[in-house]
């Protein structure tokens, strides 16, 4: 395996619609880019050339969508092997997935909520271990936003801690999801972050979202980041250090200059915080 590049600072989720512009030049202020491997594996033609140009210049990390790590369908090991090749090809230092499921024998293309049960912990942890065996490296799991809990033997905090500890994996802490869940499930977001395994946090996600009219928040990655989330990010840095932070924007994608404003603000917060943190996967 080639030596991976460490990441730090502020990164951006690369969508196919941005690839053309970013393949010409990566603006100063984008320290790394994150791609969903399932959007790029097996692609030739223009997209492949753009991604190659980008990953030769800018450190790349990967954030999966389709593995369905906690799901009822058999673990897609072919996908894991393909991701391993993709990581090597682009010298990508990280692979993360969502602590959720998306496949019930067919892909459903969305992140469904896990029951918070012992069985789900054991099952998911075994699958994560298998993935890590194949990849020859640790993966990170992301705390997802969820609107229902199919069954609750454990709290969400207990559930996440148990999976991470049993699987011996890393955590991708999505600060926006913590905020969304804290509103939808009525808890203190900072207390939640304090209860996360800080030494296992490999990087952070931050995004905007939409309000529904009856007070429920739906996580869409389609809007600017709101002030309470910025505040939570600031507090998170103070607590766990300046973890590398990735801005996600999936819909209503504005001009790159607007995204740069948010990236710069991330870096300002990191600069204001004295705890420095660099990760190497």
């Amino acid at each position: 395996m080639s030596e991976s590049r460490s990441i730090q600072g502020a990164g951006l989720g690369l969508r196919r619609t941005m690839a053309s512009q970013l393949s010409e030049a990566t603006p100063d202020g984008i320290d790394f880019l994150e791609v969903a491997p399932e959007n790029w594996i097996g692609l030739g033609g223009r997209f492949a050339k753009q991604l190659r140009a980008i990953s030769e210049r800018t450190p790349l990390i990967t954030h999966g969508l389709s593995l369905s790590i906690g799901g009822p369908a058999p673990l897609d090991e072919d996908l894991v092997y393909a991701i391993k090749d993709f990581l090597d090809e682009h010298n990508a230092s990280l692979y993360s997935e969502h602590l959720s499921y998306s496949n019930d024998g067919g892909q459903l293309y969305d992140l469904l909520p896990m029951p918070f049960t012992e069985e789900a912990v054991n099952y998911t942890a075994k699958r994560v271990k298998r993935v890590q065996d194949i990849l020859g490296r640790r993966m990170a799991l992301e705390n997802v936003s969820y609107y229902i809990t199919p069954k609750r033997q454990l709290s969400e905090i207990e559930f996440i801690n148990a999976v991470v500890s049993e699987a011996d994996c890393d955590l991708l802490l999505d600060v926006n999801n913590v905020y969304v869940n804290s509103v939808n499930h009525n808890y203190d977001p900072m207390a939640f972050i304090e209860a996360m395994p800080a030494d296992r946090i490999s990087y952070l996600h931050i995004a905007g979202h939409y309000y529904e009219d009856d007070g429920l928040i739906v996580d869409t990655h389609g809007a600017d980041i709101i002030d309470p989330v910025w505040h939570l990010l600031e507090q998170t840095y103070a607590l766990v250090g300046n973890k590398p932070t990735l801005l996600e924007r999936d819909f209503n994608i504005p001009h790159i200059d607007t995204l740069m404003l948010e990236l710069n603000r991330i870096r300002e917060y990191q600069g204001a915080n004295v705890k420095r943190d660099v990760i190497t996967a």
Partner: protein
Amino acid sequence: MSKETSLPPDSELLALQTHFTQHLRNPDTYPVPEGLNERRVGIYSELIFHNISALMSEFFPVLKQMLSNDDWDQLIREFFITWRAETPYFPRLAEEFLAFLMSRPGTNHEPDYLLPLAHYEWLELYLYIHEDELPGQSLDEKTLNSARLKLSELAVPAAYQFPVHQIRSAWDEQEAATFLLVFRDSTDSIRFFELAPLAYELLSAISASEEGVIATDWLKDKAKELGQDETSFVTFGLELLKRFNKESLIYAVIH
């Protein structure tokens, strides 16, 4: 498949997850699982539906435009109910949707050009993301005449009973036998040539052949078969091949 990473049939987790996804796929038949907030479950139903609808309208923009909103939504719902998409790769979902369309009888009020159009839009995407590159050979006239020729994987001859490449909202919906060579050019853009039936037949023969086709031989045989003038067939064929050679779509098999 490892036992450790699959669920036993009596698993509670399996039951919780399948009851939930059954409802999401087919809410008319499977009610909201007991104990779950209907309003919140509805968020998942909407997200799932809109995700796939948005992806498919990206892959099949003309089809989406030609169908009524109700027909489009009905197709997406049917896709969830009857189809299990296996590919984890998002760009390959177009293929799954086409396979789904081909597997179903269709309804009376759907347009007859639905399948041909879907195939054409899939073909454009298929070529756009194909991992091959053009062979990059430039063939002289002698080689075009006498060598065994093959067609690049990035060029596909396709026959339709509708002019799929011209379908748009102000279209008169007339059937017309349509022969195309759809290809990815040297700038990675997707283009097409309209073909005469004979040209389509020649390119299909070249495309299907493992060892390559000597075009002049094929054209002479075809002229004989149809009782036509050999020279004019060969001349026609060579002019055609020159055009494709210019785009680097054909290559000679070297022995």
